[in-house]
Structures are given as structure tokens and as C-alpha cells.
């Protein structure tokens, strides 16, 4: 795992918070010992301070109590799903309280006919789809972390995944929420209610506006037929050209993913799923829908792929092979972890027509900084994930990764893109937010923050840049 901004954990200082939490919730729910708190000091991006305390509540009422006590103690509150976030969103920067949803992990209600379910935030993403598959429905957002990440965490970052291409991201699948506000009060939102779309604003707010305690999700009907095709290309640029052509031809597969040689070789060494070794890039295409459409759709995709230089085209033989291909695609980052001392995964998004050009630029940047780069990304969405490979013990490498990462982001912005497609801003990218948005843009977002969390107790130091812009937002608030 890449932990670029590593600092030594140190102990929290407030004993009042811990004492009061234990009093109110018991030592089974409230944790205060450093050995119990150690697991709450990091996520998949970085490690930071130990929290002063953590709670593992059983229901919204307990979340509310914990939030109220933290507020009275003047301590920040950081909600936490599975800790798979890549931007430091679940890391306590300044001690305070971490709220873990490990105990609130149930599927509460399923209404398959109306394609909705009510779940607790700690429910693991894949566990939901597995639990409901027999009813002929599934939950579409499928981040690569779905075997361990929680739906609550997915709501926090508005998580994506390969199948967002036709199904949309997490926000498109959330019908309503229950959340605890900054005062510890419990509220419920629904898209069916009149009024401002509080649901839509909470999704993707990374725990800075409220703490979600229940989630109403939209489910989809399992497709009648699914087909996964694999095309091998000489290089990433030509695979990207094929993707642009597929989208430009008005075809929207359910997923359209590219892996370059470095990734394919690592994945194949680990999973043996049958990816073609030795080619410069592999395009993974999934189509889903009515059985009668599969042959024609596949023929069109294969033709476009060939026209753009595909060296081969084949489809997975059966569901088992499809699942193996997807499992290895989603395990790509882990496979890289086996061959590289450290890696840093970047997340950015560009308009789809800019794909070939941006891939060329990423290659140039990596060369310039003398860093090996692997690319595994949601090509159909223009959502890039260059993995920069480095060795943490080499100071030059660490600096080069940071600088190359920033240059990649600047390149994407210059092409009309943005700095995060699905991982979030967290504190990793907070200072980069002002590369994308003006002071006025950020001030409007700051107003929403003012309303939901005037005391800045919810996940402070995340999303918004520190310094000048924040100061201006604050001054505007005072005025």
C-alpha cells in the first residue's frame, strides 16, 4: 500500500472524550485504549494520528450520542467504513473521535419488486448483491474494493467502479438516507419528498456534512444476458482510440476497461485468468441486456476494435470465466503490490475523446520523472488510474511520485478534466481543489458546509483547501 504522507502515530490527549463516551455507551461500544485505536489511524492512503477515542455503535441513537459528546468536548468526528479509501478521507488528522460502522452492517429490508433495499452503512458492497441475487436484482455500483468496502463508505465518496459506464455512480443509486447531524439529531431524507435534494448533497460529501446511519438503495434487474470480450492491442494509445470510437459510435457497454502491459502481466502472474500476455494493452468490454442483442453488439464491438488495431478478440466462455476476468481486473492494484515495493494510484477523469492524448502525456510524465507507470482504468468513462511505482525508502522516488502525480492532475485539468473521478478528495487532494474551482465556486460549497456543520466538527481538514480560500469562506460566513 502506498502511504505517501506517513507521519508517526501519536496519542490523543483528551481523556474527557473517552471517559464520557464509555460512561454513555459502555466500554463495548466506546474504545479508548491505544492498542484498540491503532486500527483507526489509517486508511489505504496514509497513516496519521491515533484518534482520541473510537466508537463502534449499534444504531443511529448511539451515533447521535457519540456525536453530541464529541461536540461538547470540542473534538472532531471522523466516520469510517472499511478504511479502503485512497485519499485519507477516513484518517483522523487531529485526534478526535472515529465512528466505525463495523456493527451496523445489516440488510434491513429488501423490496425486490420495487427494486429497493434499506441497508446499514457498514454492509459490505458485494455482500448486498450476493444476498439479493436470488431475487433477480443487484446493486450496481461496484468499486474494485467491493469485497471489503462498505456501502456507507461508498456513499461518502460517491464511489464508482467499472460498471458505472452504463449504470452510473453511487449517487445514482441512493434513494434516501438517514443521517445524524452536527447536533447529534437523527434525520431521514427521501428523493420522494418535496424540497431541496439533501440526499444528493450528502452523497459524496466524505463525512463532512453528516454521518449516514441508514441507506435506501436502488436496485437493478439482473440482465438476461452478459458477455465479456477481450481485445489485445499493441499499445495503450490504440486501445484508447478504440474506446473513443466505441463511445463515439453510440454504443455504451456496461463496462469498458483498459489494462496496460505492466498491469496485465502482473495480474496474469497472480490470477491466471487468461489475459493475453505480452500485448501492450488489453481492452475488457462487457455488454449486458436482452439475449437476442448479444451477437450483433459483440460483432460491432469486435469490428471497431479490429479497425483500431486490435491484435485479437475473444469472449469469455461462461460465467465462471467472466467472473475470473472481473475478479482479476478488480484485484489489479493488489497484484501490483506483489511486484512493486510501493505504488501510488492516481485518480482523474477527462472527456472521453481526450483519452489517447492523455495516455500519451502520462507516459511522457512518467518517463520524465523516471518512474515506472502502470495503467488500469475505466476507459469508457475517461476515468484514469495511473499507478506510479516507487520505493518508499528512496527519497528521490517519493518526491518524484508527488510531483508526477500533481503534473498528471494538471494535465487532466488542462484537457477539460478533473482531479477525482471516484476516489474522492480527502486530504490528499484538498490543496488541488483550487486548481479546478474558483474562490466563488468553493464559497458556494462552503455555504453548504456552514449549514450542515457550522462548527467544522465533521471530518475537518478534508476536501476543502486550507489557507486563503478557507479563510475567505469563513470571513464570508462572519459577514
Amino acid at each position: 500500500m502506498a502511504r505517501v504522507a506517513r507521519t508517526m502515530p501519536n496519542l490523543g490527549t483528551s481523556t474527557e472524550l473517552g471517559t464520557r463516551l464509555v460512561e454513555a455507551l459502555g466500554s463495548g461500544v466506546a474504545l479508548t485504549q491505544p492498542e484498540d485505536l491503532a486500527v483507526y489511524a489509517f486508511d489505504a492512503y496514509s497513516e496519521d494520528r491515533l484518534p482520541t477515542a473510537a466508537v463502534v455503535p449499534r444504531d443511529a441513537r448511539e451515533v447521535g450520542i457519540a456525536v453530541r459528546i464529541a461536540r461538547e468536548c470540542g473534538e472532531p468526528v471522523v466516520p469510517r467504513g472499511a478504511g479502503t479509501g485512497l485519499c485519507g478521507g477516513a484518517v483522523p488528522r487531529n485526534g478526535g473521535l472515529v465512528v466505525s460502522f463495523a456493527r451496523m452492517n445489516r440488510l434491513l429490508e429488501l423490496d425486490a419488486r420495487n427494486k429497493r433495499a434499506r441497508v446499514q452503512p457498514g454492509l459490505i458492497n458485494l455482500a448486498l448483491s450476493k444476498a439479493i441475487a436470488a431475487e433477480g436484482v443487484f446493486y450496481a455500483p461496484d468499486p474494485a474494493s467491493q469485497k471489503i468496502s462498505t456501502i456507507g463508505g461508498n456513499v461518502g465518496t460517491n464511489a464508482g467502479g467499472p460498471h458505472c459506464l452504463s449504470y452510473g455512480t453511487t449517487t445514482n443509486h441512493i434513494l434516501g438516507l438517514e443521517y445524524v447531524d452536527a447536533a447529534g439529531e437523527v434525520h431521514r431524507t427521501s428523493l420522494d419528498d418535496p424540497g431541496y435534494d439533501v440526499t444528493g448533497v450528502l452523497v459524496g460529501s466524505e463525512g463532512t456534512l453528516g454521518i449516514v446511519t441508514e441507506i435506501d438503495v436502488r436496485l437493478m434487474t439482473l440482465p438476461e444476458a452478459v458477455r465479456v470480450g477481450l481485445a489485445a492491442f499493441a499499445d495503450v494509445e490504440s486501445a484508447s482510440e478504440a474506446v473513443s470510437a466505441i463511445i463515439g459510435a453510440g454504443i455504451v457497454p456496461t463496462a469498458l476497461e483498459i489494462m496496460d502491459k505492466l498491469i496485465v502481466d502482473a495480474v496474469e502472474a497472480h490470477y491466471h485468468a487468461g489475459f493475453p500476455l505480452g500485448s501492450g494493452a488489453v481492452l475488457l468490454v462487457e455488454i449486458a441486456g436482452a439475449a437476442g442483442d448479444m451477437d450483433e453488439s459483440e460483432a460491432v464491438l469486435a469490428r471497431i476494435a479490429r479497425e483500431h488495431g486490435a491484435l485479437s478478440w475473444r469472449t469469455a466462455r461462461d460465467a465462471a470465466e467472466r467472473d475470473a476476468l472481473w475478479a482479476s481486473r478488480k484485484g489489479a492494484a493488489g497484484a501490483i503490490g506483489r511486484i512493486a515495493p510501493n505504488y501510488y494510484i492516481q485518480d482523474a477523469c477527462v472527456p472521453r475523446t481526450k483519452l489517447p492524448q492523455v495516455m500519451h502525456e502520462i507516459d511522457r510524465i512518467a518517463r520524465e520523472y523516471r518512474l515506472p507507470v502502470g495503467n488500469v482504468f475505466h476507459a469508457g468513462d475517461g476515468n484514469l488510474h495511473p499507478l506510479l511505482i516507487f520505493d518508499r525508502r528512496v527519497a528521490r522516488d517519493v518526491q518524484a511520485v508527488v510531483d508526477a502525480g500533481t503534473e498528471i492532475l494538471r494535465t487532466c485539468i488542462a484537457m477539460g478534466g478533473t482531479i477525482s473521478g471516484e476516489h474522492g478528495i480527502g486530504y490528499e487532494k484538498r490543496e488541488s481543489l483550487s486548481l479546478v474551482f474558483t474562490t466563488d465556486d468553493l464559497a458556494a460549497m462552503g455555504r453548504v458546509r456552514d449549514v450542515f456543520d457550522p462548527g467544522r466538527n465533521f471530518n475537518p481538514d478534508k476536501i476543502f483547501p486550507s489557507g486563503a480560500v478557507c479563510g475567505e469562506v469563513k470571513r464570508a460566513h462572519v459577514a
Partner: protein
Amino acid sequence: MIAVGAFALGDRTPRRVDEPADAAAVAALLKSCSTAGEAAVIVGGGTLQGIGNAPARYDRAIVMRRLDRIASYDPRDLTIGIEAGMTIAAVTQRLAEERQFIPFDVPRPHEATVGGTLAAGWAGPRRAAYGALRDLVIGSTAALTDGTLATAGGMVVKNVTGYDMSKLYVGSLGTLGAIVRANFKTLPRPAMRRLAVAPLGPQSEERAVAALGSVMVEPAAALVVRGFTGKTTGVNDESVRLVVLFEGSAATVDRATRELRSQLGANGVAQTHLFEEAAAERAFQTTIDATIEPLADRSITYRSRGIPTAAWARMDAAHTHIERLGLLADAIADVRTGDVYVRVAAGVREVLEDRLADADATVRRVLGRATLVAGEPGLRARLDAWGSPPSTIATMRALKARFDPAGTLAPGRYVGGI
């Protein structure tokens, strides 16, 4: 000088009408209104102004029609940036040239604008298949009352950079800011569109709705329409009909049609009329138009959202109860999304006036959450358009106060008197 009368809302008429030329001018106008303590209403095509209450104060109408350009469109990206004042029909036509579409599904598309449709939170039947407009918006710029222009999102289809502010402006009825531009995902046009319309007898409605669930191909839209005589497809439109839209490949649409006919036939529905392509689009549009179509000056129309499987029964109950009051009811149950529309009318206006309070209480009791979406302003003025506010109303009020501290934007028009 523009006649102010055309911009009246309820019994309020603005003193002045402005047609700003661009986004900066909209922002400057909002700031000057805010500074001067004037109340302003943002006006698009005016087609959805039956949604919401009349404003408590109304000094100026700010008409967005000069912001009518496509700001950015590379069809190969499947995204488009559109200025707020462009009509839905104009956008749809431009997209069609590239064999693309956005399922706006809004009444009167030749007048309705992009900004107005979004601000009204319009969500049409095809959202069950393609997502609602809120889900297809990938970025926006809003003019705020402090004179700033605030952008959120962008022109990419996946974006978690900063708060999703567009969600806040969509459906806010112009009470937080004026949407000056919106960016959308576009969709490739399906190879085939077909609308099936089946007349239903009084005993076959519920069975027909249930039979629809056995059709393996999910329709793009499916509605049960009662009444709206002469206002929809022309098939059985003095009575009840099932309206089903299929979109997809020719093979799949043909299969869907066969399955539908077979399922309906097994449930006593003998006839199914088919409309293809342009005729299907026209017939579907007339059904959407009906959702807010008034009956002269003697009707009001409610919309209620809920779960799809209960839509028909809720519509049926509302219809029955309204007729029991000696009033006329026309109704639509969207069995894919769960939306129910009920138009309450009377043969003579005075009858509806007399029974208005009863009718309002009845509809809200039977449908649950129901909001007024259309009707004669004098009748609507006697009712609260929104019904009881949702539990997050305090947060909504705080958002309003933070974005529009002087109460410049359509005061009193929104939920809970916002």
C-alpha cells in the same frame, strides 16, 4: 418594454421584466435585486409554473430566454453543456442530429427550457430506464444573489471533486440561485422506439398492470391513463388505457411487443395499438403533456411519488374518492416509477370552488405525499402547493438563508414557505 402581465404568478405581477444577455448579467441582476431588497423570480418557458406557490413578494421577473446557446458539445464525448434558456425541443433536435438524446420527458418541450425544467425538478417516466435528469446532470453554473457565478462538477461523466452542488440547484425552483448553464450526459438513441397502447376495460386494469411485470424486456416507460379525453394518443382516450414505451434494438422491441401482447391477451386485453418511431414519440409526448394539462379554468393537478407496485392502487383510490365528492378525476399511474398524477375538476368552476378544501384533503390523505403541479392560479392560491414539509425542513430553511439571506429569490414559493 416587455408586458409584465404575462409573467404574473397568482395575483402577483412584477413591476419590471429583464432579459439578461448572459450569465454575468444574470448574476449582476441578482445582486442588484438583493441589495435593493427586491424580490425576483427566474423565468424559463413558464410551462411548469403551476409547481409551487405564488411568491409572497414579486418585483422583478428575470427571463432567461436569451441564454439559449449550446455552450459545449462534442458528440463523441456523449456530454453536452447547455445554457439555461435553451428550449428542450431545440436541445432534443440538436442531439437527434447526432443520434443522441436526453430523456427530458417534460410537457410542452417547445416552450420549456433546460433551466426551468431542472429548477422545477421535473422527473419523467423514462427515469426508471435511464435515470432522472438529476442523475444525468454532470455539472452546472448558478448565479447567486451575491453576484457570483458558482460552478460545480464539469464536463466529465465521473466526478467526485467537491460537493455535488448541481443536485442542490436541481429542484430548488430558483430559490437558491439561477441555473445559467447545465452539463449533461447524453445517451445514444436506441435503434427503435415503439409505443403500445392497449384499451383497458374496468375489470382488466389491475390484471394488465400485473401482467406487465411478466414481460421480460423492461419497458422504457409504462403508464395507466384514465381520462384526459382527447389529450393523449387517441386510443380509447375517453376511458382507460395502458401506454407502454419500448426502446432498444429492433429484435428486442419486437420481442417485447410479442411478450406484451401475449401477457395482455392472457389477461383479457384483446387489442394493442402500436405507434412507431416519430409517431411513438408524438404519442408519448401527448401523454406527458397531459400530466399538467388543465381543464379550462376549473381544474387542479397533483403529483405524488411512491413505490411502483402501489402506483395503480393509489391512483385508483384517489380517482374513486374524488368522484365520490361529485368531482371529475383524470389520472395517470406511472407503474415504472411510482408517480401518480391526479387532475381534479368540475363541470362548473363554482362546484370545484365549493369542494376545493375537501378535494385537497382527500387527495393528500389518499396519495400520501402530494404536491400541486398545475391548475388555475385562483384555485391554487387557496391551497398550499407542497403539503406538510419533510422532516429536513429546518436544514432546507438554513440553506435558503445561507444562499439567499435577503430573501430575493421567489420568497414563499417553495416548500414550507421558503
